[in-house]
């Protein structure tokens, strides 16, 4: 059995715009291998999907928004011929540069409705009766420059009065949580931090959670579709937290699933955090904070 694989020169697989992506196509085979050419393609695509909630279910299937190509590259790595038995490495390299002169490459991001992905594909065409061999590898792109984070403390107080959902107010116990976020403009490399203190609460607290949300907006013919979904949910307090003790808020932005806040003409990627307080009687209170994520 012959196998084919793509290896990149960087372990982290992180590349920046204008940098050269280098790597090798590794073909291993016991016997000599006849092929009709090995082609290598690389695409940087923003895939956009419409949520079934905003447009009809059928429309969501058919009417998906056209993907945005930021970058593409194709070459024939090897002309048709014969590879010797054993391991053969075919090097390749290309410069990572956006197609249009005014456009920039976006950072890699894996979301629900929006995905920014850079993949290298390699196909070895083979004569009759043998399947073509495929290999695929994704690399990550990070911005080289961009908005900087800043220290903008966001103090907050959560209590009965601050809760916005009026209907359930009757069920909510008397309590007060005071705290601050260290910044609402956060660097993706650094953890999201802050602290809070439970000042008092008449009902025992079950947990305090920190949610990281993505807000994806996709523009289409029918206008913008805005979708909010949870990326991760992290407990920062569990059990009936000691009153008056400062509890840190600490969360690391996950790779791939978060990227610097992005705002383009046909789509937007934004982030929010929620602080959720769950009480022993299962009633919960949530406070929302929009945040901006930056690369630097």
């Amino acid at each position: 059995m012959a196998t084919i694989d793509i290896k990149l020169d960087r372990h982290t697989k992180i590349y920046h715009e204008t940098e050269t992506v280098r790597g090798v196509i590794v073909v291993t085979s016991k016997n000599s291998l006849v092929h009709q050419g090995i082609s290598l393609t690389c695409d940087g695509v923003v895939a956009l999907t419409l949520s079934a909630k905003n447009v009809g279910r059928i429309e969501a299937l058919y009417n998906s928004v056209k993907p945005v190509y930021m970058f593409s590259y194709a070459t024939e790595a090897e002309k048709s011929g014969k590879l010797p038995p054993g391991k053969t490495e075919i090097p390749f390299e290309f410069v990572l540069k956006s197609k249009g002169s005014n456009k920039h490459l976006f950072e890699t991001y894996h979301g629900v409705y929006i995905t920014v992905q850079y993949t290298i594909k390699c196909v070895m065409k083979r004569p009759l009766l043998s399947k073509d061999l495929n290999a695929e590898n994704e690399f990550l792109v990070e911005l080289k420059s961009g908005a900087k984070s800043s220290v903008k403390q966001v103090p907050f107080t959560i209590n009965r009065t601050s809760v916005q959902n009026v209907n359930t107010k009757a069920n909510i116990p008397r309590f007060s949580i005071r705290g601050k976020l260290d910044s609402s403009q956060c660097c993706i490399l650094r953890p999201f931090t802050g602290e809070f203190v439970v000042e008092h609460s008449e009902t025992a607290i079950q947990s305090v959670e920190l949610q990281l949300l993505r807000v994806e907006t996709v523009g289409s013919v029918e206008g913008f579709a805005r979708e909010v979904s949870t990326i991760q949910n992290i407990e920062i307090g569990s059990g009936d937290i000691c009153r008056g003790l400062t509890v840190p808020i600490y969360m690391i932005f996950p790779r791939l699933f978060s990227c610097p806040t992005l705002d383009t003409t046909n789509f937007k990627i934004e982030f929010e955090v929620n602080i959720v307080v769950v009480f022993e009687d299962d009633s919960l209170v949530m406070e929302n904070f929009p945040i901006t994520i930056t690369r630097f």
Partner: protein
Amino acid sequence: MSSETIWKPKKFNYELLMQTRKPLSPLKSTDFHPLKPITVTDSIGVKVSHVASKNEKSVQKTSKNNEIKEDFVDPLTAMSIDPLSAIVMETKNEPKKVEKTEEDSVSLEYDDEYEPWSSRKLAILQKYTTNDRLSVTMTSMSKGESRQGMGRQNQSSSISDKLKDRLGQLDDFEEGGMIEMQNLSQQEFIEKMHQLNETLIQSWNSNQKVKALKIAIQCSKLLGDLSVIQFYPSKFVLVTDLLDTFGGLVFDRILSLCNGMTADSIVPEEVPDTAREICVNWLLKIASIRELLPRIFVEASIIHCNDFLQIGETKSVLNRLTNMTCGIGDPLIAVYVRAYLCRMGVRYAPKFKGHLKTNFYDFLVTYKQIHTHPVQNKMAAQKLDMAVYLDHYIPAVEWILSSLAHKAREATMSEVLEKCRKGGNSLMLLNCCISAFNADYVSSRALALCDLINQQKDDIFPKDRVFQTLAKKVIKSDPPEDDRLPLLNDVWKLLMKIHHPKRYIACAEAWSEFAAKNFTKKEVSTILGDIIKHMLPDRAFEQHYSQLTSVVSNVLQNMKNFSDIFSMDKFLPFLDMFHNETKKVEVCKLVASAFNSIPDSTTSDPIVINGLMYICKVMHDSINALSLDDDKKAASDLISGFILKVTFGKDFEQQLSFFVECRASFYGLDSVLATLVHAVNRLSSQVNKIVKGNHTRKTSAFVRACTAYTFITIPSLQDKQLRLLLYMESGQVALTSQCITQSDAIYKSSISLIMDILTVPDKKGGMSHQNLVGFLSTFLSSLLLVPDNPDQGVLYLLRGFLNVISNTEVNLSMYTQCTIYLKILSMLTAYSQNQYIYHITKVDSNDNLYNSDPKFLEEINTLSCTILDQVLGYLSSPRLSPDKQEQKNQSICATNLFEVIIAHSDLKDDKMQRLAAVVWELANRNGFVETKGMVRILDDLKNKGGEYLRLANSLPLQSRA
């Protein structure tokens, strides 16, 4: 043949013999001893250093020469530097620097004084157990495995797919697929944890890292479950063990990627990208764990991996995790998390102490929560009272504090104490503080601490437990002289008020040691009295024998003077509290062995003797027919030890009356009685030695009393052989003490005892041939000294003995009998001499009694002939049995007889010559005798010349066919 047999004894002049005998040249004591270290006087090192001033070449040359020389002169000089010290020298030279710095840094931080976690672990596991049912919530592993398998096949998937797959698995394990294993017993739970540990290692080795992580997370989740609080500390130990395994695996894997770095020499800048990437990935994966508790635990378990990323990173992570712990609501869970953080901190960042204090102070804040509803509800649900609940904090708090207290300055202790005091309900905290800090610090302020404890209005945690802890410290390190008495008074004031016997005795046990160590008998006696007062109501002592025993042993260990111990009027009443027979005996043994273990001590103090007599009596009375041999032996040894320690110096009368008393008390133990007999014999000999054989009326009465004592005592022994030995010893002593009639009686009894022993069937306590012959030879030799009783016939003792041996009821083989006969034959020769070979001063043996009277000699001769007849009868008996052994025995016997003839008979007589020739032939008859030995005998005879040569020439030498 029998009518022909004659015996002509050879006449010896012993004095002349003694003169002609060459004295043995005294053994030179040589300096040589094989184990002595060899000192080289001619030092080679000097030579080398001499030459060392010359150039290198010559040094090498000479050193080579030296080597050769060394070998040549003495191979052992090579050992002047023994291999061990050579190794030491080598290691000293080479890696000195590395070793030193390492050791220093470690020892500076945490040394022996610091009780390591591993030793605490076991204590915790033993202490915190439960009979309640436990539950483990786990995802089914098989499911995870199958998914993992799928993921593995799908090789070409992009990283995002892989990541999704993995995260999916994590989700899977977090949300679905739970199976809860309930109703596990404690043992099953422990097994399950070990099994998980195994699975963890297995899955790691089979490259299923995600599964390993899952197991780690799930196990740390178990620590969030407080449903069985009694078991929680043990659960903590089990889970953290597993986490340690996990952390070790992750660390080792990353380390293996860092070419050639060791765990101590990680340079973050040189860590290769791959290793760094893996490390970061682990940290990211752990950071995304949803729940707080497992996130902290798992991150803490791989905290040392931060060393790969940046110097000092471990410290900041430690701080962050410490802060994050504030988010854990339950104070008990939180304190264990903190304990784990401290443990990891101590282990991986030993120089960093900041987090320890933070951890403790944060804990103090959360400690107030014990009164909140959630905690109270949990306690109520499990029917725990507050004191028991608080008990479960102790391992964690102690650990945190001991990490904090290690090598801390005294100011730290003051600071911590102050904080504890302010908190309220602080007895538990004080307890941990006292046990954690250096004993010197604690002792120096023991009095103040005592006040502090007394001031606390804390009815949750028992004060006596704190005092108990305090006791341990003040015993370890003495408090200032002036503080001791007030301290004891203060503590005891409180102790007296405790009515709960269990709590009382636990505390009293600890403080009794303090009292025994620092105070005199007056205080200790008071304390013992108080313990008695508390223990007597409702027979409370029955439940606390072990504590009471340890009080006794504390007193014994710390008060070396037994007259003090026994003069305390409460000591014996204290022992009386042990109503349980076995416990009482145990305590008595303790006392007796403590007394016996005092080296080189004797006593004549009547108080001590009385006390110990009482104690020994208890031990003695505990022995009955059903007792095990070991028990008997232990008791006898202790009692004998005590008896031998009692001396009244020159007051022999009192000594003897003491022995009489002992005999009355310890009649049931053979070896004690034997000891008594020995002791009395020694006493008698001592007196004899002092008067140098010239007894006055008083002394002779005394030694007679001694002999009477032994004579009466011996028959009460069970063991007949022992009795026989004692008879012989006593007979000899009686004879040396000139108690002739008494010794006569003793020998008479011993002969009848021999009869007794020999008639019992062989298997039951019979003596072996060797023992019997050996013993009887000694017996016969001492008979030589015993003068005949004028009222009885000539040599009546010997006759009596002969009668015993030849008695048909006696269970003896012919061979043994003949061997004994041969001994008697030699003995008779000795009897027939004009002057016996040895005498006792002032005792006239038969030689002086009869003065070689012809009648007497005739008597001896008749006896000799009879005996010889018997022996020859045995030897010449035809081959009765085809038994080879019997034939061999006959040959041996014949050889022996031949030797006796050579040694003791008058060979100038032709008849004797003929007899010798006959016996020689008999000896060679069956071909069982070694020719070599025979040749040697012949050579010897030839050398002697005279009649011996004549004999030798007449003897044929039979070569073996």
